[in-house]
């Protein structure tokens, strides 16, 4: 990506400690508009913790995070969400007792934050947008099902839909393919690509290396909370340190 551009999401020496243990240690990164960036690393390497820090569910102990040029190091989660950063979770968070369509509406509520509109039911246009997105994700036929009745893969799609509802600038997807059958993985991959062409930026935590290799332009590798390497997927997959971290003793 052109480096003269301003990064969309940027972190300087981001650190997060649990007790004395550094879950994320001095990580620098910059994600530019229109990129699809991968975040890989062995289990427990701090990927999800970094996501939590970026989406502000965890406090950042030191370092700074900028989103759209604004310092969001101390922002509340709902504030970064409203600025245009949405995410999915490793263990899917959907409202299992609500219908799929209702789930989509929930993620759009804040769009009208005036008191008057808060007192109204969701607008018809919002409902329409939810149906369109469900269509796009090929789960329209499930709109009136309770989310709890969906399969694992369908839930992942629904969660992506929920993250898309507010029309964000960047989506953080945490293991969007785990527990998903191969056909659906292809669907997810295809949808990500389409969305990226429409201008959405992605940051993906992923264990599925093929998925990363197919989609991402750049990859960051974390190990024990530290940035081990960064570069194109091809370069990363030949990097000795990375291979060591994954397969080494």
């Amino acid at each position, binding site marked *: 990506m052109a480096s003269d551009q301003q990064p969309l999401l940027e972190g300087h020496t981001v650190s997060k400690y649990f007790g004395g243990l550094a879950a994320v240690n001095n990580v620098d990164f910059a994600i530019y508009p229109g990129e699809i960036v991968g975040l890989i690393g062995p289990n427990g390497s701090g990927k999800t913790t970094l996501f939590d820090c970026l*989406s502000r*569910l965890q406090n950042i102990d030191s370092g700074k995070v900028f989103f759209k040029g604004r310092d969001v190091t101390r922002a*509340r*989660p*709902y504030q970064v*969400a*409203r600025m245009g950063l*949405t*995410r999915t*979770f490793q*263990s*899917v*968070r*959907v*409202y*299992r*007792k*609500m219908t799929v369509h*209702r789930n989509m*509406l*929930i*993620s759009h*509520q*804040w*769009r*009208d934050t005036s008191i008057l*509109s*808060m*007192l*109204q*039911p*969701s607008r018809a246009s919002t409902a329409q947008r939810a149906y369109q997105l469900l269509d796009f994700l090929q789960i329209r036929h499930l709109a009136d099902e309770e989310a*709890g009745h969906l399969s*694992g893969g369908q*839930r992942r799609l629904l969660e992506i839909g*929920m993250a898309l*509802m*507010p029309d964000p600038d960047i989506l953080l997807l945490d293991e969007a393919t785990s527990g998903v059958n191969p056909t659906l993985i292809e669907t997810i991959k295809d949808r990500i690509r389409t969305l990226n062409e429409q201008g959405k930026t992605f940051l993906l935590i992923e264990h599925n290396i093929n998925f990363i290799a197919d989609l991402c332009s750049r990859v960051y590798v974390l190990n024990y909370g530290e940035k081990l390497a960064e570069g194109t997927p091809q370069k990363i997959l030949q990097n000795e340190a990375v291979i060591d971290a994954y397969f080494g003793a």
Partner: protein
Amino acid sequence: MGTGPPVKTSEEKAKRKLSLPFLAPVHSLLAGWVGLTLWLLLLLLLALYPYTGVSSVALFVGSQIFVLVTLASNWNLIGGMTGYVDFGHAVFFGIGAYIMGILVTGSPLLISPEWGFWQALPASGVAAALFALLIGLPTLRLKGPYFSIAMLGTLVAMREIARVLRPFTGGGVGLNLPPLLNRLGDYYLMLAVMGLVVSIIWWIQRSQFGQSLIAIREDEIGAEMRGINTTLHKIVAFMIAAFFTGIVGGFWAWQNTYIDPDVVFVEARTVEMVMMSMLGGLGTVWGPPLGAVVIYFLQDLLWGSLFGVHLVALGVLLVVIVLFMPEGILGTLGDRSSTSLGRLLSRVGRSK
């Protein structure tokens, strides 16, 4: 968690057996305009009731039931819809009662002239709401059982403080309010308050605000991450619930003409609210009012004559409902908006 392997608890299985899914359309109808229309019709009938030439006792009973329905609906807003099980909600009742007592007697603060009932009543509500803001800012950050215990602590601590602040509250001696008997006025006032509160709950339940509250109940972190300002939502819901509870407290003080710390800051009143909501169905619009009516008549039928026994029975009943009827009446009848107590509980306590 939102997902994971769907572990079915025995409660959920029991629910499947009991629930009557064919009633689901009825429930969704009642949650919509039909429900409100029927409610307004009922209010109209209740407003005409005194014209049938009833005794003042019947009017008194009516106003008592309206009080219970209002309290249950209010508690349901924070406990049932938002999922913050408040064990100290009676504290707002007590504050409303004391503000009423202090303002209309005037003496403790040397307020002169004393306030009239109609000025003091809104003040009771406002004071309770402000107190909710003050106490909610720290306590609503606590999760699950800790919130419940902290609110119970608030209640017991306020009872203590009311006893200590003798110059304002009369301490343990309490306050005597001017007795002005007006059963008909009481009836209509509480009918109006009840009508308003339940209509507001109905409105909230279908608004984006209410849906956000339910989202907070089901998954607070998820709600926050989807752009809902959870703190603001919780505080507002808490303040609304406290406001009307304070109004009821003020009214109760006026009607009872005597208050002291032990009759207004009392755990049993919280238990009553919790139980009526649970019995009817947590998180539904019509469940808590239904539960309140059932509890009132149950009390009247079973142990109305023996003073004090009903409080023992109240405690026992709470145990029985929690153990054997966690879904409430509406939940058992297949209302989807009803949160099973068991599910609400297992969500908040899931890390156990």
